[in-house]
């Protein structure tokens, strides 16, 4: 049977079962809501629902989680755009331009673009997933080991530093600060204790979610509070004017590029949607003629980030279903759902449970499509949250951020880290450093350190080993060229007064 016939069969199975339909729409709405509410996430919903899936049919349980995954990744974009609070780490780059758009009275346009591009990225990713799960999974794990992932991270950091902050040096200092924070705790390979100052809780390291909440949500509350006190505060304008087809079509290359980047990051175990979103955004900046406009409310910033993170969702299902390798926390929970039904994801699922696989594929496809319709309806209502006066909104944001920071690991140190990041972010944002660069350094630093150590072990501690791996070598060369270009620009090109600034928002008090 060909792929299309199997897809139709999965669709019929999905929509011919009233319980299945109920679970599907419950997952769509639940994923969007939990993704959109700061402090909780799709992971919270998934953790709550996990024990109950034991009482569902296996296909319903897996389908529910896959639907939550698709819509949850999109849901976090709403709060990132409206309040500068990414619902999830993968929505952080969306806030770089989405929130400035809200400040300029273009919230509807930003949310509309997020809706359209999340749906598009997710749908295309699903189609590729359905067409070629097994061969892509085999290729990915053969071609991409720790040396290649490290090279990808190096390239990502080089790109990020070249576009961040007011100057080249401040961009790299921001990245390096993020890398420094990333090394707190046990080293990921040898288990050596670092920078814990005798405090056992610091052995767990500084998690990036509290840092993101601090830099984005808490510091934004401080900035707006200062404006309120000094009389400079202006309530954001409400608008529901969605982007036109022409505006979206003008960014078709950014969409295609982000789909490729998102899909690629999604299939690598342990990488996933967060790196996808950052890489999608960085590449958009790198290839744009209007670099200077990024961070100030450029539609392309929202488009590139949201397309990439949803493109990673379908891709993440490929190693899970074909090989039993979960790429992130939610797909790891899906393994738990499989196991509750005495099943294991992996090659045998395609042989033993083809019906389940195609119901899940169909559900993910339609979940991404439903983002388009339900997302627009949801947007019309949620945008009105901007009408809440700041003095009521600010405590709610701080409360939700505090709950969100604590909920990650149940550690008070995470709440402290969040408020510290908020205070530091408040001052850094007015001094030309890139808080986005710090966050990126923190996220990529943890992955990069681990994969570098693994790569060196794998290459028997010979740097020359990278030359024997074409993909790793290509990415390293691209990273070095990017870095060289940035250094050249910093020394030999005349610097404009204010460079591009992919910050949480660009209207910092000056």
């Amino acid at each position, binding site marked *: 049977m060909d792929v299309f016939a199997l897809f139709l069969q999965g669709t019929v199975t999905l929509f011919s079962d009233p319980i299945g339909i109920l679970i599907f729409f419950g997952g769509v709405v639940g994923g969007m809501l939990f993704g959109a509410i700061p402090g909780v996430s799709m992971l919270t919903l998934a*953790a709550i629902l996990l024990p109950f899936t034991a009482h569902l049919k296996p296909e319903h349980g897996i389908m529910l989680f896959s639907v939550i995954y698709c819509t949850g990744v999109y849901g976090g974009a709403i709060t990132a755009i409206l309040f500068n609070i990414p619902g999830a780490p993968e929505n952080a780059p969306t806030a770089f331009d989405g929130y400035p758009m809200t400040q300029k009275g273009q919230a509807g346009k930003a949310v509309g673009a997020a809706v359209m591009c999340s749906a598009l990225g997710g749908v295309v990713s699903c189609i590729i997933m359905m067409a070629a799960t097994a061969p892509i999974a085999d290729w990915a794990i053969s071609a991409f080991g720790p040396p290649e992932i490290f090279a990808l991270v190096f390239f990502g950091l080089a790109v990020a530093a070249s576009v961040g902050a007011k100057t080249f040096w401040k961009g790299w200092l921001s990245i390096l600060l993020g890398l420094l924070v990333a090394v707190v705790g046990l080293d990921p*390979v040898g288990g050596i204790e670092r920078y814990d100052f005798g405090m056992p809780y610091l052995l767990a390291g500084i998690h990036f979610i509290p840092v993101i909440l601090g830099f984005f949500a808490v510091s934004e509350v401080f900035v707006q509070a200062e404006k309120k006190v000094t009389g400079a505060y202006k309530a954001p304008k409400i608008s529901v004017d969605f982007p036109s087809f022409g505006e979206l079509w003008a960014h078709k290359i950014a969409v295609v590029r982000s789909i490729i980047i998102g899909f690629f990051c999604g299939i690598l175990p342990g990488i996933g949607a967060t790196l996808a979103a950052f890489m999608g955004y960085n590449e958009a900046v790198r290839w744009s003629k209007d670099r200077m406009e990024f961070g100030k409310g450029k539609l392309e910033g929202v488009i590139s980030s949201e397309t990439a993170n949803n493109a990673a969702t379908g891709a993440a299902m490929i190693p899970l279903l074909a090989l039993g390798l*979960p790429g992130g926390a939610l797909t790891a929970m899906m393994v738990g759902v499989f196991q509750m039904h005495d099943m294991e994801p992996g090659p045998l699922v395609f042989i033993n449970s083809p019906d389940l696989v195609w119901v899940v594929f169909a559900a993910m496809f339609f979940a991404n499509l439903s983002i388009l319709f339900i997302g627009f309806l949801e947007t019309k209502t949620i945008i009105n949250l901007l009408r809440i006066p700041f003095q009521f909104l600010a405590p709610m944001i701080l409360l939700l951020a505090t709950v969100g920071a604590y909920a990650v690991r149940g550690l008070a140190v995470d709440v402290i880290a969040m408020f510290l990041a908020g205070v530091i972010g408040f001052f850094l944002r007015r001094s030309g450093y890139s808080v986005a660069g710090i966050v990126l350094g923190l996220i990529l630093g943890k992955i990069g350190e*681990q994969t570098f150590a693994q790569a060196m072990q*794998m290459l028997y501690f010979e740097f020359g080993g990278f030359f024997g791996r074409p993909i790793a070598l290509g990415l390293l060369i691209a990273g070095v060229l990017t870095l060289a270009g940035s250094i050249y620009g910093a020394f030999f090109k005349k610097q404009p007064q204010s460079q591009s600034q992919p910050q949480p928002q660009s209207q910092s008090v000056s």
Partner: protein
Amino acid sequence: MFKKFVVSTGVTAVAMAFSASSVFAACATDGMPDSMDGPDGYPARALTMIVPYGPAGGSGQVAQAMAEAVTGLTKVSINRDHKPGGSGTVGMTAFMASPADGYSVLEHIDDASSAHALDSGRPNPAEDLIPLVTSQITFSQIYIRTDEDRFTDWNSFVEWVKAQDGKASIANVSKEGSMERVTMKFITDATGMKIQQISFDKGAPRYGALAGGQVDALFEQPGDVRKFLDAGKFKPILTILKESPEAFADVPNLTDAGMDFEPLLRFRGFYVHKDAPADRVKWLQWAFQKAYCEESYQAYNESKFMTLIESYRDTAGSQELITNTIAQYRDVYKEMGLEVK
């Protein structure tokens, strides 16, 4: 290819049959009373179970399975509080800071024993805590890809590794002092082979490294790679036990391979504060030990290959297991030249 698949699946089938038979055998706590009232209305509220690892891993899953079994048996709710990080240190610290009132229990693995062996300042699970039950004990194996053609069994693997002059690799969790690293030291000392250990702290990238050909072999416990065994992707070439369990009778063990060292086991169990009221501890011991024999928990253990060797230890048995393990690690650490505090 098909033959390899059949052989591999056959191993799994034998293992499943063996483990199923053990489930239907009399369970270790069948002699205990079916119900027990808590002292003075205890527990009057839900218990809290601190789990020092994330919800999706082996510890998270066993904590969930045990919590559900205890709740099913006693109707007392258990809230799981995951505090991952620091190789279990963060969860242990949080537990030690919680009140010793019998409402907090801890899930932990043998890492707590090896951590104490290296640094006696860290809690000794056999003395500073009271083990309620050890509910999972398993052994390790070395795996290769089923379609591997450079070597096919343990002997040819050792020969091949020696011929590579150090340019061979195995994926494991090779943190300093870990069970994996200590066991690999035993093996490399005994065989004279030199192999590079690549440390992956998460399962998926570790298994992906073998499946994708990034490494030559994998050190793991059978329950964690069951799906790869079922799918015919991986096959065990060495069981790190002195005697092979019936399920893996065809796989050479340490004795077959001419190695003479005491194998280290991976175990997971549940604990309460040593200062918790004695009558409450007694009730908790009954609840957790009895829950081990609940059908739901046994089914879970079976699905994870945790019935191939005896997985159950009561309080005294757990204390003996932990004490012996600590002594064994301490000897090895000294021999390895590590600083034992």
